[in-house]
């Protein structure tokens, strides 16, 4: 592949994640304005927008792109709304990346948003289940906690691990999330808190699960030439990869690995000219504690089956061997599903431009984002480098 342009993230911003009162249109605009101001550009510099959102219908607003562009004073600029379940944000980012790399646009707005908490636990559970392979999974009563719980039980059976092992992931991510003022769950927890929390889908308990969150995140993606002309801090996107997996868990060769992660990571590492060992920190898709364990193996940070041992030894904690989810991850920062993949890029931008405050990963040069939809049926991995 030949790319015309190097691609950079020039600005980034998020709303707080949590239960938000403002409408989906409001929070989409708030995050976008903060990214525009962070980049130090005018909305009129933006050539188009990529909006990731899954359940706009739940807040009575689909086709949100033109609403956002109208509010930004650029109703004449095109927008595109992208849905890939919980991976929508990174997939949208990837499409924007490709358009800048190819030279079609020099400056794009990439915004992700979700507003669902007002629908309540039962309906959020139900809507999310529609992201599975309905005929085989949701139709038979599978929820998303249930699908990842099935993965967790397969992992426990194959690698002789315990529920306590998964609980440690939650504790670690909450330790990081306490340091993130935008996090949904800014609260320290213990292993016992996780083990004693209500069972959602055995063996996963409430504190093994990310919360349902509202929120929006936004970044400005541009060519290196544009970034240099407009000044301000920017980071370079040095790798971008995509992958897919069988939509239903039953169709995977192994139920304890996510093929799309391995494919996307291989692509992204190759493009970046690095290996997993070169990554200083990673924002990975920890929708459930089991997912983070599987992710860190599939991304090549640890051997298959060794992910829990790494957590036991504290090797994934902030400023350890490799800082995994310094933001708190989906588990503590929250998971507004259309926003999550973009929010990970916001964290990487803040880390690599020295704006991550108390949760700063020291001397970090290379950050990675990993975000997938459903049980990993679609995935995107991106690698970023400070300049």
């Amino acid at each position, binding site marked *: 592949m030949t790319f015309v342009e190097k691609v950079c993230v020039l600005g980034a911003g998020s709303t707080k994640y949590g239960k938000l009162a403002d409408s989906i249109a409001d929070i989409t605009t708030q995050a976008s304005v903060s990214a525009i101001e962070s980049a130090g550009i005018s909305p009129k510099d933006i050539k188009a927008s990529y909006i990731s959102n899954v359940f706009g219908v739940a807040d009575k607003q689909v086709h949100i792109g033109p609403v956002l562009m109208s509010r930004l004073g650029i109703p004449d600029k095109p927008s595109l709304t992208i849905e890939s379940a919980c991976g929508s944000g990174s997939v949208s980012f990837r499409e924007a990346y490709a358009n800048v790399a190819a030279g079609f646009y020099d400056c794009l707005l990439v915004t992700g948003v979700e507003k669902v908490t007002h629908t309540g636990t039962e309906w959020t*559970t139900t809507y999310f289940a529609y992201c599975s392979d309905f*005929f085989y999974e949701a139709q038979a009563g599978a929820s998303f906690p249930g699908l990842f719980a099935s993965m967790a039980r397969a992992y426990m059976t194959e690698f002789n691990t315990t529920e306590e092992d998964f609980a440690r992931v939650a504790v670690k991510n909450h330790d990081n999330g306490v340091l993130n003022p935008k996090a949904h769950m800014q609260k320290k927890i213990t292993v016992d808190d996780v083990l004693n929390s209500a069972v959602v889908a055995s063996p996963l308990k409430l504190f093994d699960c990310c919360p349902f969150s509202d929120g929006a995140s936004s970044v400005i993606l541009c060519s290196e030439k544009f970034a240099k002309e407009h000044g301000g801090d920017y980071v370079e996107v040095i790798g971008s990869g995509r992958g897919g997996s069988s939509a239903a868990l*039953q169709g995977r060769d192994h*139920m304890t690995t996510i093929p799309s992660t391995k494919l996307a990571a291989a692509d992204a590492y190759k493009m970046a000219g690095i290996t997993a060992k070169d990554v200083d920190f990673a924002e990975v898709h920890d929708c459930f504690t089991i997912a983070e364990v599987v992710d860190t193996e599939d991304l090549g940070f640890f051997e298959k089956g060794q992910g829990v041992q790494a957590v036991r030894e504290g090797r994934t904690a902030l400023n350890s061997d490799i800082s995994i989810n310094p933001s708190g991850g989906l588990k503590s920062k929250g998971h507004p599903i259309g926003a999550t993949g973009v929010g990970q890029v916001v964290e990487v931008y803040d880390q690599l431009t020295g704006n991550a405050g108390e949760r700063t990963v020291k001397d970090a040069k290379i950050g990675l984002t990993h975000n997938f939809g459903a049980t990993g049926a679609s995935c995107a991995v991106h690698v970023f480098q400070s300049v």
Partner: protein
Amino acid sequence: MSIEEQVIENAKNGKLLTHKCTGCGFLHLSTAYFCRKCGSKGFEDVLLEGVGEVATYTIITVPPAGFEKYTPYAFVVLKLNNSDLRISGFMGGITTPADLPVGTPAKITGFDERGIVIEKQ
């Protein structure tokens, strides 16, 4: 009948309809329209007994809409005997992991508002 309707009718009889690739012999669930191994579109229908063992499962206590009256219940991934194929389904009457060790023999027994229904053998 659509492919999904054919799966449903066979599940009601405890069977699983599958597609065997006429090009390379790879066996798929019947919702496959092209072979994932060789890309061929030619399939022959193969009707399997819906019998196997539990590969993994969960017991759901926070259900999606429509499943409240069945809660708690298990969502099960069944590995079919004499095949690499797996099929998912609903299993009632499961309240603790002690009720369903991984490897428990089980079979498809029907299809209704709970999707494909699987029961312990």
